[in-house]
């Protein structure tokens, strides 16, 4: 009889335990990102950055007493595939959160899934302003990447200072990212240099294997300078094809590329074929003219070791920062409940190896900018580096 009472008391006590203790086990973060195809040049290091962040955080005890578990999936840079793997992550793998996608085609598609399923989704790379436009904004989408508005405007601010500029051209991949970035560039350029004429615009598709006809068509219009948004593996192909055709020589290397091709992830594969003299940007230049903070140096050393590469990556920081942002939000909310975490992210300041960023409570943007500079040869490195990397953010508030 006493045993029955004790049993009943034990059951009652068990039922009274707080809910999340019974949901113990790792916090699962779904990570759809291109691991193949031309965009994998950026996707793979972003994942590595995230993996290192997860490793560091777990080593320090995890979050709310639980370990983090990253579930990466290859989105192939394709929105349909990104949606498919995201659904699988949500319904089959029961992830608590989503971080990922690379392109501006994938992110809005996955954002819809996140909205339907009330899952917090952080985009570390996709830049199109449409992702957080008022008609698409919902409580669960947040961005640690820069935006096409910032990037296009930065390109214009830089190019407007170039002398003898009368005829400009643009070349960008024909989808949301390229279109939005060029539109932002032209809008800002018109304000800064109304005297400049746009003589040509080329729109090769994302993943274009043969840029030659676009290159020669643009050369025929004789621009003085070019604003380019070709990025990742496509830029490697583009540079290798444009070089022998005399494209860069014809414009005296007066090209500004906003697609983070200043990252060592692009510079290393191109090696000596890199078009030195162009202006390019990166979230993390890796190579700096002056000493950076001790935290940053430690991060870079750990990253190079983690990636088993000598130089690390200029893109890993986005994966790293996104995991960090999520963890900061979970800690602030005190729970892994997506609604509460999403609320906690509004106005949240999260730490990155290159300094703090804040999620704008109205737009869910981090308003991150890139570091821009001229790409030059450096005797200490077998790849092109950014000369005097300078942070550009001409539009701190977007949308």
């Amino acid at each position, binding site marked *: 009889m006493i045993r029955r009472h004790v049993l009943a008391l034990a059951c009652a006590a068990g039922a009274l335990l707080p809910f999340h203790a019974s949901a113990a086990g790792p916090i699962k973060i779904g990570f759809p990102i291109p*691991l*193949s*195809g*031309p965009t*994998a*040049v950026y996707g*793979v290091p972003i994942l590595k950055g995230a993996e290192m962040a997860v490793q560091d955080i777990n080593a320090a005890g995890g979050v709310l007493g639980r370990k983090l578990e990253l579930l990466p999936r*290859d989105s192939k840079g394709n929105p349909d595939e990104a949606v498919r793997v995201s659904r699988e992550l949500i319904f089959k793998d029961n992830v608590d959160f989503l971080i990922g996608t690379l392109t501006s085609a994938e992110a809005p598609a996955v954002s819809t899934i996140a909205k339907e399923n009330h899952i917090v989704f952080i985009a570390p790379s996709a830049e199109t302003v449409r992702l957080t436009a008022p008609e698409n904004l919902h409580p669960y989408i947040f961005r640690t990447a820069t935006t096409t508005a910032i990037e296009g405007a930065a390109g214009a601010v830089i190019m407007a200072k170039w002398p003898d500029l009368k005829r400009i051209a643009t070349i960008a991949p*024909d989808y949301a990212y390229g279109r939005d970035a060029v539109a932002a560039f032209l809008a800002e350029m018109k304000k800064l240099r109304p005297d400049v004429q746009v003589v*040509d*615009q*080329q*729109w090769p*598709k994302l*993943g274009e*294997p*043969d840029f*030659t*006809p*676009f*290159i*020669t*068509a643009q*050369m*025929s219009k004789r621009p003085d300078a070019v604003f380019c948004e070709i990025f990742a*593996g496509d830029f*490697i*192909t583009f540079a*290798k*094809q444009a070089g*022998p*055709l*005399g494209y860069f020589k014809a414009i005296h290397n007066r090209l500004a590329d906003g697609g983070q091709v200043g990252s060592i992830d692009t510079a290393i*594969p191109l090696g000596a074929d890199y078009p030195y003299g162009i202006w390019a940007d990166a979230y993390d230049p890796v190579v700096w003219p002056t000493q950076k903070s001790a935290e940053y140096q430690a991060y870079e050393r750990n990253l190079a070791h983690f990636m088993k590469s000598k130089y690390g990556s200029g893109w890993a920081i986005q994966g790293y920062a996104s995991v960090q942002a999520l963890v900061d939000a979970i800690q602030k909310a005190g729970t892994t409940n997506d609604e509460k975490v999403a609320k906690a992210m509004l106005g949240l300041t999260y730490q990155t190896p290159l300094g703090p960023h804040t999620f704008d409570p109205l737009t869910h943007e981090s308003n991150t900018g890139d570091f821009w500079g001229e790409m030059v040869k450096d005797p200490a490195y077998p790849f092109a580096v950014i000369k005097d990397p300078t942070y550009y953010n001409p539009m701190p508030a977007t949308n």
Partner: protein
Amino acid sequence: MAASFLFSQFISGLTTAMFLFLIASGLSLVFGVMRVLNFAHGSFYMIGAYLAWQAVHWLSPLVGAFWVAALAAALGVALLGGIVERLLLRHLYGRDELYQLLLTYALVLILADAAKFTWGTGQLSVSPPALLAGSVKLFGTTLPHYNLFIIVLGPLIAIGGWLALYRTGLGRMMRAAAYDREMLDALGADVGGLYTTMFVASAFLAGLAGALVSPLESVVPGMDVQIIVQAFIVVVIGGLGSFWGTFWGSLIYGEVLAFGILIVPGFSLFSVFALMAVILILRPWGLFGRPIR
């Protein structure tokens, strides 16, 4: 618009065209003779590119490494084609075409995964051979030597192929097999051997094309699917089974793409598909094609 840049656009169209011809000719002939629509043809092209990269990687400091690598890649893919034909495809000749389609499609998936498994998912690149690394200035435009080489190679292969088909005994047998396989078999010819030869030759051409394209474009997963679509457009425009049809189809495709970009930027790809639609409406079998029996 300076004439020099019209010329450069024309040349760029020619380069695209000749590459496509190298690949599409094999596809067209295999269909013409064997009535097999070989989806895996693009995969042969991709394997050729990967094998060339691998061979260059191994042979690199040697002079002439690229040429040896390209030949080795083409032979490797030819061997692969022979194995595929002997072991897999020949069991399906008598059957419904659907089975052949399914088999070659399955091969596409298998070969794509095999390539990813062996060489990873990254983008690989090959440098142009030292012999052709320079460029020449012609009519005011810069022309890389390598592109010129491809442009010259295309017609050479076309003429060589035509001679093989129309001026040799083996070629005559091939054309006979295309016309009436049963009769040829009844006359005692080794039709099975002819088919294998045809398939191996087309695989060799695809592998060679893949190897030769590697200095110009990146070697990536997905290049198989991307090229097979273009090759199909070309053979449809030119007429399935017609050798010269493929040649002219490639030329038209290359130039329409090149000038489409100049005339209607943003709609260049559309212009090629529009062209294909127009040709099919006017000549449903393609420019040089015959109704398929």
